[in-house]
């Protein structure tokens, strides 16, 4: 005969309550580890989204000296327009550059006040045909040092810097979360072993009267799964905070232009939430399975 859901839930609830402190420690550890794990994914998504915006648009910027002569400007424009390796370009004049500057530094009006459009460098934002990093770097270098050019900034360098930083931060997040997930698995195992020992007499009676192994196991396994699910809910809360308060901050109009695409789409957030839930389930099933097979059937 199948196990009654009422019986299973009652026994699971009693087990959790009897080991309340240890259960809470397990839930918090699972929550934090899953939060770090999910945070790693959200951060990667945000970086990918931010860099995609760059990769699909401007690949390098040729900053002109504000004092460049019209002849020097014309030479650069001619070089851009005649190059078969350049797909598109946008010229940002001093007024437009000043407007951008005002947007970026709207929080610091004292800085805006001392800057005038005349000191702003105009720029050519260039989109090459081939977005390959080496090709773009080679193309950008052709404009370096030419008369009237102040500097050339390749967006690829910036993207690389962001991606390198993201990789390093992500590795730390991932390593930390994996260590904590291992700790969480051991905590689930310890918690269930403790529950099994607390209920030694009950288990002995159950076996003697003919309860099946699964009937005895299920409440203990459910205990581990419940702890992991509560941990996942905790992690979801933490991920929501990361999305809204940390990543969301970069999407606001007053944030840096470079970070404007640093955001997580709703489908990516849902996927990460599902992944966190799946990992929680896997951790709980592994921990509780080891506990019941090693300590219950013995």
């Amino acid at each position, binding site marked *: 005969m199948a196990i009654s859901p009422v019986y299973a839930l009652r026994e699971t609830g009693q087990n959790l309550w009897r080991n309340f402190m240890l259960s809470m420690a397990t839930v918090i550890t699972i929550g934090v580890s899953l939060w770090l794990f999910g945070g790693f994914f959200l951060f990667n998504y945000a970086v990918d989204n931010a860099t995609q915006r760059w990769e699909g648009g401007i690949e390098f910027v040729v900053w002109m000296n504000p004092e460049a002569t019209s002849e020097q400007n014309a030479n650069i424009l001619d070089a851009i327009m005649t190059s078969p390796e350049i797909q598109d370009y946008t010229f940002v004049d001093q007024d437009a550059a000043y407007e951008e500057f005002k947007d970026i530094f709207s929080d610091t009006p004292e800085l805006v006040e001392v800057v005038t459009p005349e000191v702003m460098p105009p720029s050519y934002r260039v989109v090459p045909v081939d977005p390959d990093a080496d090709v773009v770097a080679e193309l950008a270098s052709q404009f370096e040092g030419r008369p009237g050019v102040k500097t050339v900034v390749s967006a690829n360098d910036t993207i690389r810097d962001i991606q390198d930083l993201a990789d390093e931060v992500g590795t730390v997040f991932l390593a930390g979360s994996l260590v904590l997930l291992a700790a969480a698995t051991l905590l689930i195992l310890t918690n269930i072993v403790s529950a099994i020992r607390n209920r030694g*007499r009950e288990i002995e*009676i159950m076996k003697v*009267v003919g*309860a*099946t*192994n699964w*009937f005895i196991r299920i409440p203990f396994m459910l205990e581990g799964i419940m702890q992991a699910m509560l941990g996942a809910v905790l992690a979801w809360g933490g991920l929501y905070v990361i999305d809204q308060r940390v990543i969301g901050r970069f999407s606001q109009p007053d944030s840096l232009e470079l970070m404007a695409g640093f955001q997580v789409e709703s489908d990516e957030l849902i996927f990460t939430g599902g992944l966190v839930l799946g990992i929680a389930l896997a951790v709980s099933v592994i921990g509780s399975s080891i506990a019941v097979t090693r300590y219950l059937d013995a």
Partner: protein
Amino acid sequence: MIKLENVTKVYKGDHVALRDATLGIDKGEFVFLVGASGSGKSTFIRLLNCEEVPEHGTIHVAGKDIGMLGRWKVPYLRRNIGYIFQDFKLLPNKTVAENVAFALEVIGKPRHVIKKQVPAILELVGLSEKMSNLPSELSGGEQQRVSIARAFVNRPLILLADEPTGNLDPQTSIGIMRLLDRINRTGTTVVMATHDRGIVDTMRRRVIELDRGVIVRDQARGVYE
């Protein structure tokens, strides 16, 4: 109902708990297992309940060769066997009724069956008035009655009792034996390990005597020695 053929059980360190035991116990029999401590009585009972596996020989219980029984089928066999412990093994945080109901609940019996069977068995063992008491509020004899009710509530074919009167005074033991006798008269086979000479001599049932794992006597209407 129970058949042993050349059964030998050896524990670690080459300690032979049961040696080449062969016997049969029919349905409805009442059998005393007697012998000194360490003679193999408890091993005999544990073998019948599939808690131990013999090194040699075959054991049939309730028509099943338990050596051929898959591990997952053991719980279903145990539902035909009631088990009474010397130290009662009641759950201290459950009432008398809950202790008995527990045995039905964990084998998946529906609630309406539990509601019907628990009061009936508690009436049989004379504890209808103490259904809501905790084990700590009962005497030793009453606790053993609860243990018997728990073992018998599922109406098993066989009742195994490992020194059920070992922790009780003589007067209380007589009450317990009357109860076991009453259960036996319903057709249930009872196998009871005991050191209690008075009980064995008074009841005059079949006696199987073990000595260092060997069956040295199998006597119908026997006495302790």
